[in-house]
């Protein structure tokens, strides 16, 4: 689809000519995200539009609506499932210039921000004032809050603090036809009409353009610390986490990584790994005072020892804690760098099914003779099996796709789901019907039809 010059001129008049890109190389820059959707052939937009205000977004949407032009919203394009890839060309609507912190309401402990604010900046802004925005997807330093809300991003602190949607109180959304709505609000109790806030949260840019977000905050925990536990088996690692939770020690996060993942990180860091290590748990605890913190650390130590932990490291400084977390945050990319291609999945299962799910993944890896690194948020049952492969090898590619298919089937079989926090986007589209059923997918389609009858918003996603 080509966009006529006169339409481009109208758009330039709205956002300013310098905020419209249409050269081939510039458009190429907006053709990819951090998913395994191939870079070539590129899914280039016809034009990149970078609005600064909600009104500009609304005006651009009105033009797109009137001319049937596809619009794919985009934050930092750090997503893992192709959500911001403009599959149908048209407009890549980059919201990264909308970086205003609109209001901090300290009394109600809520903050209103524009969609392009980096989640890391939001976190720091709040933290400087003793307030806490907990959701922390691994990309939080460079991903945008708009993208986090659109994908309903999770993160490592989900086990104790929940995910993005647990903090979204309201949204400003530009609809497909360019009209602007506000959903939710600052009232904690609010049952007026459908809960559109939660409908748009996680809608992956297919129902409207999220331009502002109202988030609730909580007081910043006074003290926190990080522990790193090494185990000789995945079962012992999982058992330790479950025992902690059952004993009332709810860690802010409990991350688990298998041996392959550990080796991936070790390639880039000075890390010595005991060859007997099969699993590593990184867990963050927080409390209101140092005694409470120490108490938790001791209890965790005792539990970990009872399950035969090989090594227990309690961070002695903020720097050491940061160093330990850097291992986890860099993990996804480090694993990805181990092979020409990586199919990273994001299945989520009931917490107690975590070890069983890992066993089933191991069996699938053996069956298809593939290397699959497994890591994830053991505290909440969200796993990221990463199939390391070379898709240019057609025999291997075939085995990979079969393996991924079986991983999804097994995840559903143990009572889980396709995606915990990355969204469906392009990459998990083929599997959605098996997760939701035909009637379930039809319900999504009916909602889409009601809000975007022309299908111009992020076409080609979710189903």
């Amino acid at each position: 689809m080509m966009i006529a010059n006169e339409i481009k001129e109208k758009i330039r008049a709205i956002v300013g000519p310098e905020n419209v890109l249409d050269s081939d190389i510039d458009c190429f820059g907006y053709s990819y995200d951090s998913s395994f959707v191939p870079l070539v052939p590129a899914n280039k937009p016809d034009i990149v539009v970078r609005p600064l205000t909600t009104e500009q977004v609304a005006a651009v949407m009105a033009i797109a609506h009137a001319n049937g032009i596809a619009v794919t919203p985009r934050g930092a394009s750090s997503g893992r499932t192709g959500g911001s890839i403009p599959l149908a060309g048209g407009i890549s609507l980059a919201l990264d210039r909308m970086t205003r912190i609109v209001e901090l309401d300290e009394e109600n402990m809520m903050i209103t921000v524009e969609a392009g604010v980096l989640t890391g900046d939001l976190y720091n802004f709040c933290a400087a004032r003793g307030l806490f925005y907990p959701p922390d997807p691994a990309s939080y330093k460079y991903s945008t809050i708009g993208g986090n809300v659109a994908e309903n991003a999770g993160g490592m602190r989900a086990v104790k603090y929940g995910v993005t949607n647990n903090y979204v109180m309201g949204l400003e959304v530009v609809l497909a036809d360019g009209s602007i709505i506000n959903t939710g609000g600052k009232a904690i109790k609010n049952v007026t009409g459908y809960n559109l806030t939660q409908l748009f949260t996680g809608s992956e840019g297919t129902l409207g353009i999220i331009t502002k977000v109202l988030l609730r905050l909580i007081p910043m925990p006074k003290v926190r610390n990080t522990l790193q536990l090494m185990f000789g088996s995945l079962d012992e690692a999982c058992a330790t986490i479950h025992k902690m939770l059952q004993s009332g020690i709810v860690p802010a996060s409990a991350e688990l990584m298998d041996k392959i993942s550990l080796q991936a990180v070790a390639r880039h860091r000075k890390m010595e790994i005991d060859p007997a290590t099969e699993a590593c748990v990184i867990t963050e605890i927080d409390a209101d005072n140092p005694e409470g913190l120490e108490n938790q650390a001791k209890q965790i130590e005792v539990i970990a020892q009872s399950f035969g932990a090989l090594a227990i490291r309690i961070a002695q400084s903020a720097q050491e804690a940061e160093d330990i977390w850097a291992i986890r945050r860099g993990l996804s990319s480090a694993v990805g760098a181990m092979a020409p291609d990586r199919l990273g999945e994001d299945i989520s299962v009931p917490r107690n099914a975590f070890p069983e799910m890992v066993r089933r993944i191991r069996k699938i890896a053996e069956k298809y003779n593939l290397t699959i690194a497994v890591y994830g948020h053991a505290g909440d049952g969200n796993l990221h099996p990463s199939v390391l492969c070379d898709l240019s090898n057609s025999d291997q590619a075939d085995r990979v796709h079969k393996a991924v298919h079986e991983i999804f089937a097994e995840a559903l079989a143990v009572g889980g789901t396709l995606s915990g926090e990355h969204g469906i986007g392009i990459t998990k589209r083929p599997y959605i019907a098996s997760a939701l059923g035909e009637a379930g997918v039809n319900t999504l389609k009916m909602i889409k039809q009601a809000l975007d009858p022309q299908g111009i918003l992020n076409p080609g996603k979710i189903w």
Partner: protein
Amino acid sequence: MKENEQEDLLKEVHRIVSQCDRCGSCRLVCPLFGVKDIESASARGKNNIARALAMGGLQPTPEVTAAVDFCLLCRACVETCPSKVKTDEAMIAVRQHLANHQGGTSVKYKLLGTMLKNRSLVKLVAGAMGVMRKVGIQRFVPRGMIPAEYTRQQFLSAFAGPAALGATSAMSSAPVTVQTKVAYFYGCGMRMMFPDAAADTLAILRSLTQPQLVDNVCCGLPHLAHGLREDFLKLAKENIRLYEEADVIVSDCASCSSTLKHIAGYFAADPQWQERALKFSQKVMDLTEYLVKAGYQPRQRVNAKMTFHEPCHLGRGQGIKKQPRELLKAAGDFVEMAGADTCCGGAGSFHMDYPAASDGVLAKKQASIEKTNAQIVVTECPICLSQMVKAAEKSGGKFRAMHISQVI
């Protein structure tokens, strides 16, 4: 042969950039993305342009050349990248590939390369620039190509008055054995733009040893960076030959020392030169690295507040971070600035090729310097120093810019 080289370069590019997971964490630290926030300006953008080129998804157009030229090679992205994707090496390789493809690099870089390849021409230009400085017409030459040099003498008369603490001579404390043959590497940038600072470097070296003066040729970084790899290799061989007698090669330019240290890597597969190149690279030391090893003590301590701009080729290029700061702490009132290791936007000829972007990057550096209230910003690379001089001028005299040899 040529075709093989082209394929090898693309393979090299692909090997590096296929490690990029496109997470975008580099966008936080890329100085150019900081002043031009569109994807193709970021490290992620350029790596993926290179990847698409290697995969046949993009054609080698002038647009592609312009995109990969728009990189400071500062390695800030490499440091922050979870997979340590070497953007700088990928850009150098892809520039070489594009230059070969287009039947050679652009006229601009060819001219620069030819000039720097030629010892006599470099000296000639250095002389001309010196004359222009003396008669004060360097102001009329654009883009700070001939920065005004603030000399050590001026520095001492300004800061080493009655308030200065006693000057100490460090001659005796240097644990340099008599046998160590130290040779100086006189970089083109130092020669052409900051000859007075280079003279101070020699004075410092003479207080420790008897430095050999070698009529060296260019380190070859400008050639390597702009698709003139053959020239780079020729220059490297010439320098290897020239310094065979020396035990230690000291340079007061971070870009030179970093490049010379990396020469070995380029001859790793050349049985004839491999060993000599390795030996050569292992002998190279950055000035402050050598001085700290030799136990040098600054000649004086002054009451000036000083901050340090860390050249990319020093900190990320050679891992030298502590040494210059240690020396500055002994020489005066040292204060660390925020983002000291962020590129200043100089980057070889980048500041002349992309003045607007370079000025944007430099403006941030200037703000950082001003925030420290330092009177002097010190650095150790002539391109950085010419940028610092520019920043000092723009600050309206809030601070001065000096080479480290002039203050220690």
